[in-house]
C-alpha cells in the first residue's frame, strides 16, 4: 500500500497569515521533507478565483516540486479537466512528466463550483460528458503520435502534442466522489479510481463495483487501482484525536465544504451552507479516521484488505504517520 500526502502552502489558511510566496516556499520545503520521510506521493489540487489564492494550476506546482525531489510521485488531486481544452491539459501533463522524469500521476476531476464553470464558459450540466470525452482524449494524446477524435464536445483531426511523455502509459485516475457513477466512469475507462473521504462501508461497496465495471470493460485486474482520500488524526486517546479533527474542520474544511457546495445530496444537488447537523455533514466528519496509533493501523488494514492501493492523507502529523503507521502497512 502506498501513502500519498498533501502539504500546506498552496492556499492561505486564515488563522495562519503570511505572504503567498512564503507559503509556496513552505510547500516546497514540506515536499522535500515528506520525500525524505518515505511518503510515495504528494498532491496538488485546483480551484480558481479564490480569495485565499488557492493554486489554480496544480501541475505548475508539481513542476516546482520536480526540481527539488527525485523519487516521490507528483499527483494532481484533482485537476479539473472540464475547465481545460483536453489537448492543452495533455501538454501540461506531458511537459511535467518530462521535467519530473516520469513521476506524474494525474487525478482528473470534473469540478463542481458554478463560478468556475461560468468564468471559463463551460456549461456545468455538460461536465460529465466532457469529463468522459476528456479522459479518452488524454489517453489518446499521450499514447499515440497523432490521433483524431470526434465527440459531442471535442473534435480533433490528426493532431499531436509535444512533448511526448516519459511514462507509457501516463498514470491517469478519475478523482471524485464515492459513487456508483464514479466507479462506472473510472472502471469503464480503465483509469484508477480515487475516492473521496467516505465511511469504510461505502468505500468497500464502491471499490467492489469499480472492479466489476473494470472487469466487464475488459481491463486486467492489475490495471484497476484505487486510492482513497483519508484524513487521519492520531492522539493518545480518541478524544484527543477527535479534537484534532475538529480543529481541521474549523481551520480548513468547514469553509471549503460548506461554503462552496462540496457536499452533494440525494438529488445530486450541491449543498450550500447546510447545518452542521445535516446528515451529509455528519457523514463527512465521521469519515475522518481518528484514534490511537493502534486503532488507526487497524482501520487502515481494513482498506488494505479490500485492495486499496493508495491512501492519500492530510498535511498534518506526517512524521508520526511515517514513523508509526507506514511500516505496518508496507
Amino acid at each position, binding site marked *: 500500500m502506498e501513502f500519498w500526502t498533501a502539504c500546506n502552502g498552496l492556499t492561505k489558511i486564515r488563522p495562519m497569515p503570511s505572504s503567498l510566496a512564503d507559503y509556496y516556499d513552505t510547500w516546497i520545503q514540506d515536499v522535500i521533507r515528506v520525500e525524505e520521510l518515505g511518503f510515495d506521493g504528494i498532491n496538488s489540487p485546483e480551484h480558481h478565483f479564490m480569495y485565499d489564492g488557492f493554486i489554480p494550476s496544480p501541475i505548475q506546482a508539481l513542476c516546482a516540486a520536480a526540481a527539488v525531489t527525485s523519487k516521490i510521485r507528483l499527483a494532481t488531486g484533482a485537476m479539473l479537466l472540464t475547465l481545460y481544452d483536453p489537448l492543452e491539459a495533455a501538454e501540461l501533463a506531458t511537459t511535467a512528466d518530462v521535467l519530473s522524469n516520469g513521476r506524474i500521476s494525474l487525478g482528473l476531476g470534473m469540478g463542481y463550483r458554478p463560478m468556475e464553470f461560468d*468564468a471559463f464558459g463551460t456549461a456545468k450540466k455538460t461536465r460529465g460528458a466532457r469529463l468522459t470525452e476528456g479522459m479518452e482524449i488524454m489517453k489518446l494524446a499521450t499514447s499515440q503520435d497523432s490521433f483524431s477524435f470526434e465527440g459531442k464536445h471535442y473534435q480533433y483531426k490528426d493532431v499531436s502534442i509535444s512533448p511526448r511523455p516519459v511514462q507509457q502509459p501516463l498514470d491517469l485516475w478519475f478523482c471524485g466522489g464515492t459513487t456508483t457513477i464514479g466507479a462506472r466512469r473510472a472502471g469503464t475507462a480503465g483509469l484508477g479510481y480515487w475516492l473521496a473521504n467516505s465511511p469504510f462501508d461505502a468505500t468497500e461497496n464502491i471499490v467492489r463495483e469499480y472492479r466489476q465495471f473494470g472487469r466487464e470493460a475488459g481491463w486486467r485486474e492489475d490495471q484497476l487501482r484505487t486510492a482513497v482520500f483519508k484524513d487521519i488524526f492520531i492522539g493518545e486517546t480518541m478524544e484527543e484525536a477527535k479534537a484534532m479533527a475538529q480543529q481541521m474542520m474549523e481551520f480548513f474544511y468547514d469553509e471549503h465544504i460548506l461554503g462552496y457546495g462540496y457536499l452533494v445530496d440525494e438529488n445530486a444537488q450541491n449543498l450550500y451552507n447546510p447545518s452542521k447537523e445535516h446528515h451529509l455533514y455528519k457523514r463527512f466528519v465521521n469519515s475522518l479516521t481518528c484514534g490511537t496509533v493502534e486503532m488507526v493501523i487497524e482501520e487502515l488494514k481494513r482498506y488494505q484488505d479490500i485492495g486499496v492501493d493508495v491512501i492519500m492523507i492530510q498535511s498534518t502529523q506526517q512524521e508520526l504517520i511515517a514513523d508509526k503507521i507506514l511500516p505496518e502497512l508496507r
Partner: protein
Amino acid sequence: MRVGISYDIQTTADWEAILSDIEAADTLGYDSFWVSESRENGSACSVPALFLTSAARRTRNIQLRIGGRTVVIHSAIRLAEEVAVLDLFSRGRAGIAFATSGAQSTVPGHVHETIEFVRSAWSADEIRYRGEHLRFPSHTSDDAPLGVSFPEWQGDYIPQWEWGPAMPDFLAITPKPYATAPPTYVDISEDTTLEWAANHGVSPFIGADMTTDRAVERMQQYRAVADAAGRSRYEVEAVLERRMGIGSESDDCTLGGSAHDLVCALREITSKASIAHFVWRRGNTEDGDLTQFAVDVHPLLQA
C-alpha cells in the same frame, strides 16, 4: 543593458542540460532566460511556464520569461494564472511575451484583448471583460462596457463562501503575482500589433529569425509611434533576440566576430533602436561559451 539567453530546444534529452545551463547563467549574472512555446519534433516545450517554474527553484536571480505564448487554445484566465504562479514561485522574476496573431492563425485583436485582460487581471481585483474575442465571466452581456470594467461599491459585501451557487458579474483572478505587474511583451512583426503595442505601453519583442537590419527598422518604427502617442521610454523594455558567437561568422541574423566586434555591434543596435535587453539565442548548450561571453562582452556593453 540587460542580456539574456534562449535556446532552440530540439529534444527532451536536452531539457536537463538546459536547466543546468540556466543555473550556470544565473551564477554568471545573466539577466534573463527565455523559453518559447513550440511543438516542433514532438520534443519542444509547449508550456514554457512549467519549464520555468522548475527552473525557478534551481536559480535565485535570473529573470524567467515565457516566450511566443499563443492565445488560441489557451484560456486568457489560465495565461494570467500561469504567470502569477511562476512569479510567486520565483519571487517576482516572471514575464511573458506573446506571439504574433499570424503565428497562431487568429487576428491581431485576439492577441491584444488577451494582453489587456491579463494585465488587468494581475492589477485589479474583481473585473469583467467584454471584447470581440473574449468575455469574462462568460455570461457577460452585450450591455457591459467594452474592455475592462469594475463593480460599483454597493455599501457592503458578501464573502465568497456565502455566495452559494451565484455566478457574479465580476470576479477576481487569483493569486496575484508577486510583482505588481510582470513584464509583458508582444512580437511586433505585424504592423497592427506594432501600432497597438506602442500606443498601449506594451514592450516590443523581436525574435532571432528577423534580419538585424529589419529588426532595427521595426524597433525604430515602434519608438516613433510610441513617441507620437506621448509614451515614455521608461515604460517599456525593448527586447531583441539574436544569434551570436564570439569568433563566428556574421550574417543577416547573426552577430559574430571578436568580442570587441560583438560589443560594437550590440552598442550600435542599442543606439539606433533603443534596445534595452538582448537575448542570446543559443542552438544548444554547446553553442558558445557562457562564461567567455559573461567576461568579455557583458561588462563592456555598459563600460
